[in-house]
């Protein structure tokens, strides 16, 4: 999932100065799972904003809505009937949803209510960790399904480096050495011969180095 974390309300407030009606807009997908921008977080932010506005004596209507997704136009279109009632939108979707909402409603100011962090997984309740950087050319078949691009600080394709110590990265004791994980995994799979093979130079043009990316599938395109 795309992992995000809630922005402090203090950061959001200045953007809403002068607004008389604000829509807090959540998303039912990734940000719901990582508890940053689902229905409950929408309720919390909206409630906090109402408390603040009431305390300041400001008459501001704060609406709440959570869409199935903010990254698909058909769901964003559900807002068409109600969005005009609001002066501003605080979107708790990931950066994709925030931008897509703004694209769909160009005359409406849309502000981020979360910081979008990475693509990751839940290690346990309340702890999420990065697992993928969307590099556009997946190497996981070669590395025992442990990603050196996302999990090695140096993105080394043939590691480990000299900073690996007792299975940990030189960044700190809390960071696993990705290449140690790869070796452990290949050993467990009985595929250590894969470790002996050098991974060739990666085509980074499929990563961000090639600029903003797009995927087109003509067979499903409308």
């Amino acid at each position, binding site marked *: 999932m795309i992992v995000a974390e809630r922005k402090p309300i203090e950061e959001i407030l200045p953007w809403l100065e002068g607004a008389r009606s604000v829509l807090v807009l959540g998303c039912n997908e990734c940000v719901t799972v990582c508890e940053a921008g689902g229905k409950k977080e929408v309720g919390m932010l909206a409630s906090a904003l109402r408390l603040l506005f009431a305390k300041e004596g400001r008459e501001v209507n704060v609406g709440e809505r959570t869409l199935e997704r903010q990254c698909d136009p058909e769901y964003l279109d*559900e807002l068409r009937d109600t969005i005009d009632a609001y002066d501003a939108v605080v979107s708790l979707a990931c950066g994709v949803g925030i931008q897509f909402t703004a694209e769909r409603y160009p005359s409406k100011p849309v502000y981020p209510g979360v910081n979008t962090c990475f693509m990751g997984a839940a290690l346990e309740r309340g702890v999420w960790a990065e697992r993928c950087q969307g590099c556009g050319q997946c190497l996981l078949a070669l590395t025992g399904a442990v990603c050196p691009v996302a999990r090695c600080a140096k993105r080394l394709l043939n590691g480990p480096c000299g900073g690996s110590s007792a299975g940990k990265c030189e960044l700190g004791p809390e960071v696993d050495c990705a290449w140690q994980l790869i070796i452990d995994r290949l050993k467990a799979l009985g595929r250590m011969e894969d470790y002996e093979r050098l991974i060739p130079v990666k085509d980074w043009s499929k990563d961000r180095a090639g600029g903003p990316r797009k995927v087109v599938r003509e067979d499903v395109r409308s």
Partner: protein
Amino acid sequence: MRLGYPESIKIIRVPCTGKVDALHLMRCFERGADGVIVVGCREGDCHYQSGNFRARKRVAEVAGLLERLGIGGERLRMVNLSSSDAPLFVKAAREIHEAVLAAGPNPVGRPRRPPAVPTASETPGKEVIRP
């Protein structure tokens, strides 16, 4: 024992403090409550194992938020006691009462109804999707 506690306190029964969500606490203040005390079972005595520990974390989270919002984190607290600890309940009730008196009324004002802006679920025709 027939012990008295401040009349201003309204008791809301929940099956377990683990049921008390952060949003429930926020709604109390949004609707004008001057203070809230969450009364959970003693730590280690939760019938559902960890309900009161969860509640404690949520109370801390919301109290911190209330403090940052300028409403006052001291208006929200949690106490752990058993159903037979009436004197402790009365003590806690008086303490939150005193804390609220010291903090003054909820700056939000008197109890209010939910906002007038129609939510999506209340808006007729919300299912209509325009091109």
